């Protein structure tokens, strides 16, 4: 959460010779990030980013407190200055009553006081601080509540006392369906469990810690105010604020947990301001209902642990000094520090590591040396079974064969999900309809890329990503690493896709792909490796072909293993034989048949197809002897004979 503070306002509580840029730098390095220091007339405004665990820094007081400790570490003088408070003693003869009934499960502390006031415009210094902080100035009565919150860090509220029926506030949980109109004139229906104030007649007169209601807020005619502080359960505040979408500064601060010890000090500060700026007269006793007093915790930290975590030897007296300067009470015992946590750090500092952080940041992160952690053990690296090695190899091969890699979204629309929707892992809160289902396949996403790039005639793209399959209950969906390819244009045909895949497989050591007709319905092929169906090629259109491969399954068979085969002693004899074959005969079957005819046939491949004629290139070789033309002739006869008989082919 960000807060904007004027330099002049900060210096009311901090006396220092440091300039604004110095303060910004010091605080950024040791406390909270000062994002910007910008001019504000003759003044400066700090934009501070305060993390959720340090609500104590969301105020001038909190920042001044940090700065007073941090600045001396950087060589500047710094001292905290006291805040002008006013002890609220009744100073009118006619005192008034105010009844507050608390619910200590909801509210930890209530402080309040009734004042007689004169409503008018706020003076410039109040307007300036509020404007710098991004808060609108309305009138002195409301402005002081915001000013006090900004200055001390405890949110507060003013009611028009005369508009409070029965002068009663009963703190309770809201019931589901109750309606309120907040002071911005918006109507809200409560979901139940919200912290509200009831006027004793069932009417809600405040949404505590978040926003006042229209029926009790100050108006132009307000003469008496109830100046009110409530310290609320942070969880409920967040739930209500988020649920109703009412995000006020007060809510944002309250949901992080505000130090209840601040309430009285803030009240006294407020009273001082009302006296100064609104001619206030105290009309009631001070109310202080404080069931949830801060129980101070003591944490024991071993100084050796401090040194071990930071990696630097810090003597115990230095740790002691640092912690004391931050407001911790410290006692030493046998190398350990017994550290008592101040109220404003109650929720943040709870374990020894939190204390170590305090010492470390004050010691100065920039003062800590820089060294690589030493090696004692390392994970054994097995390249051939490393999935990242194979993935990168495949990607690079595809790149050097001219393909471009794309990254498409894992979530897809209904139309892009291939399968019945009840099989899809579905998002409960998608951002839009185009990204609602976790995809089961890559192809539709890749085809969308093609469609997006219509002006390109020849396109070759690929992606390696997970696809997701629903699993039984109590199991995460299965994620399968998949390779998707789309080829469009001149090389957008089946044979280019097949060749690409075979070459890729070859590069990763897989040399026995088996292609069968696809049973998916369209024109294409199914790829089998060692009897496992690992992928498919689908011809989508003329000049457009897609392929999808279970990459995970494929790399199980990948290997870098190379075996040495002794070089052939005796030369090979090669020849080409052409056959006229019926269209429906598969080349693969013919090759298989030819190969069967003799063990001396070392290689058979399809050399050429021209109309009905297929030419096969055959290589004969023996390891033991030179083959004679007669021997080869014998084998050739067998080849011709079997092909003609089995496939009704005719040799040419």
């Amino acid at each position: 959460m960000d807060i904007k503070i004027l330099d002049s306002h900060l210096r009311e509580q901090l006396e220092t010779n440091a300039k604004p840029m110095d303060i910004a730098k010091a605080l950024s390095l040791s406390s909270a990030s000062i994002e910007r220091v910008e001019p504000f007339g003759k003044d400066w405004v700090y934009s501070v980013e305060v993390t959720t665990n340090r609500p104590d820094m969301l105020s001038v007081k909190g920042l001044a407190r940090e700065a007073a400790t941090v600045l001396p570490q950087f060589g500047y003088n710094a001292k905290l200055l006291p805040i002008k408070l006013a002890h609220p003693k009744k100073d009118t003869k006619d005192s008034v009553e105010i009844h507050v009934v608390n619910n200590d499960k909801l509210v930890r502390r209530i402080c309040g006081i009734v004042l007689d006031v004169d409503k008018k415009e706020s003076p410039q210094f109040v307007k300036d601080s509020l404007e710098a902080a991004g808060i609108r100035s309305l009138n002195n009565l409301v402005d002081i509540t915001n000013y006090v919150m900004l200055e001390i860090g405890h949110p507060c509220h003013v009611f028009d006392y005369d508009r409070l029926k029965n002068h009663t506030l009963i703190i309770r949980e809201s019931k589901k369906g109750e309606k309120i109109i907040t002071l911005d004139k918006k109507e809200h229906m409560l979901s139940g469990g919200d912290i509200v104030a009831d006027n004793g007649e069932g009417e809600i007169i405040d949404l505590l810690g978040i926003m006042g209601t229209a029926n009790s807020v100050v108006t132009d005619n307000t003469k008496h105010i109830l100046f009110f502080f409530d310290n609320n359960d942070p969880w409920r505040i967040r739930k209500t604020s988020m649920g109703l979408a009412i995000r006020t500064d007060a809510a944002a601060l309250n949901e992080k947990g505000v130090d209840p010890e601040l309430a009285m000090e803030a009240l006294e500060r407020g009273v001082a301001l009302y006296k100064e700026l609104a001619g206030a007269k105290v009309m009631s006793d001070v109310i202080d209902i404080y069931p949830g007093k801060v129980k101070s915790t003591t944490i024991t930290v071993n100084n050796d642990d401090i040194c071990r975590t930071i990696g630097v030897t810090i003597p115990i007296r230095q740790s002691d000094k640092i912690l004391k300067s931050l407001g911790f009470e410290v006692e030493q015992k046998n190398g350990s520090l017994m550290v008592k946590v101040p109220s404003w750090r109650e929720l943040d500092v709870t374990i020894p590591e939190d204390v170590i952080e305090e010492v470390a940041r004050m010691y100065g992160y920039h003062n800590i040396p820089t060294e690589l952690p030493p090696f004692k053990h390392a994970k054994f690296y097995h390249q051939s079974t490393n999935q990242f090695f194979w993935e990168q190899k495949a990607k690079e091969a595809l790149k050097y064969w001219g393909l471009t890699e794309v990254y498409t979204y894992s979530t897809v629309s209904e139309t892009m999900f291939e399968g019945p929707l009840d099989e899809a892992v579905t998002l409960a809160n998608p951002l839009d309809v185009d990204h609602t289902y976790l995809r089961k396949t890559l192809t539709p996403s890749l085809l969308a890329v093609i469609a997006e790039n219509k002006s390109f005639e020849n396109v070759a793209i690929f992606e390696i990503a997970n696809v997701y399959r629903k699993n039984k209950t109590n199991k995460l969906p299965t994620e399968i690493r998949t390779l998707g390819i789309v080829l469009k244009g001149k090389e957008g045909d089946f044979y280019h896709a097949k060749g690409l895949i075979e070459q890729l497989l070859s590069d990763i050591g897989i040399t026995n792909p088996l292609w069968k007709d696809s049973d998916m319905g369209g024109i294409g092929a199914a790829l089998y490796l060692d009897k496992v169906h690992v992928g498919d090629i689908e011809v989508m259109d003329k000049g457009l072909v897609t392929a999808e491969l279970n990459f995970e399954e494929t790399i199980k068979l990948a290997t870098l293993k190379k075996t040495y085969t002794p070089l052939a002693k005796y030369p090979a004899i090669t020849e080409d034989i052409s056959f006229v074959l019926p269209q429906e005969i598969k080349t693969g079957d013919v090759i298989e048949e030819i190969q069967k005819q003799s063990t001396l046939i070392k290689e058979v491949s399809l050399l050429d197809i021209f109309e009905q004629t297929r030419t096969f290139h055959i290589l004969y070789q023996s390891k033991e002897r030179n083959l004679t033309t007669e021997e080869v002739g014998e084998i050739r006869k067998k080849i011709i004979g079997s092909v003609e008989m089995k496939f009704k082919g005719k040799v040419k």
Partner: protein
Amino acid sequence: MEEKLMSLKNDAVSLILDASDEKTLEEIKLQFLGRSGRLTLTLKEITKVPLERRAEVGSLANEVKQSVEEAIERQKQILKHQTIKVRKQTLDVTNPGIKPPLGHLHLITQAMEEITSIFDKIGFTRVRYPEVEWDYYAFTALNFPENHPARDDWETFFTTEQTDSEKGQIILTPHTSSGQVREMERSVAKLRELARERSETGVDGSKDKLYSGPDLSIRMLNIAKCYRRQSDVSHTQMFHQFEGLCVGENISIVHLKGVLDYFVKSYFGENRTSRIRPYHFQFTEPSFEIDVTCGVCLGKGCKLCKAGWLEMGGAGMVHPNVLTYGGIDPKKYSGFAFGWGVERVLMMKEGIEIDDLRLLYSNKLEFLEQF
């Protein structure tokens, strides 16, 4: 005989010097040195030479043969050079070459490769864990209390899958930190298994106690897709992060700074430097925010940076609760972790001023083909 030999030699050499191409030279070779070549046939007549003169004649014959062969070789070389000169004159070096194919790897892949390589060298090995993950690993085990803001609907994607009583809802992981406790569990399990195999005593084999035995050393690099419910010029609903986790004995802030400095100088260059500042994460204590000096002004301050610095990401010492969830005894072992955006460091390095981050995942070819 000698005269015949000398005359043959002169004939041959003269023809050779006249030859204007390799084909002619081959023919001359055949003519003189072939099976029925003139020199060969003449050599056959050496039987007609009287015995006492045969050695002398034979020697001369060989000399002639050698001279002819050498002349042919020489002429071949001369012709070669001439050819080159001719070819050079008809060669337009500015004409386009015939290029082999060259595709493109996505910028993200390139960045991940580089990041992996850098961390590889200091012993961080890459891992992969589920993208669709239990709330337990993404939040609970990382010390997020049940009603922490980060779990709320508006940041995290939830699935409609059934909730598990212990592991919570199934979500799309919003950060690579979900791999931390998985890695710890895995490492501990492996050590316990090895100990069982060695049947060592002294190593606590019981699953209930936290691991405080020897040899635990984790250096994990988890680079993966993350998902958050945000989409605007600087956020995409799917993005990439890389997470480092280092756990061991006496791992300290000194080591975190060491690894950070090593990465920053390796990836961005040695003229860049880094610093850490206080921050807050649920799963680290102390927590830090990391800044890197601006690549444009090199730390002096300019329009593009914050007083010379750019925010890179977060880091911290692993929270003892997280070590405990991971099954590791925080009294014996400590560690640090960091998590940064791949897109972010990519933008910071290349100075690729992409005005809309969604362009990275738009898959427009004219964009992808630039890299």
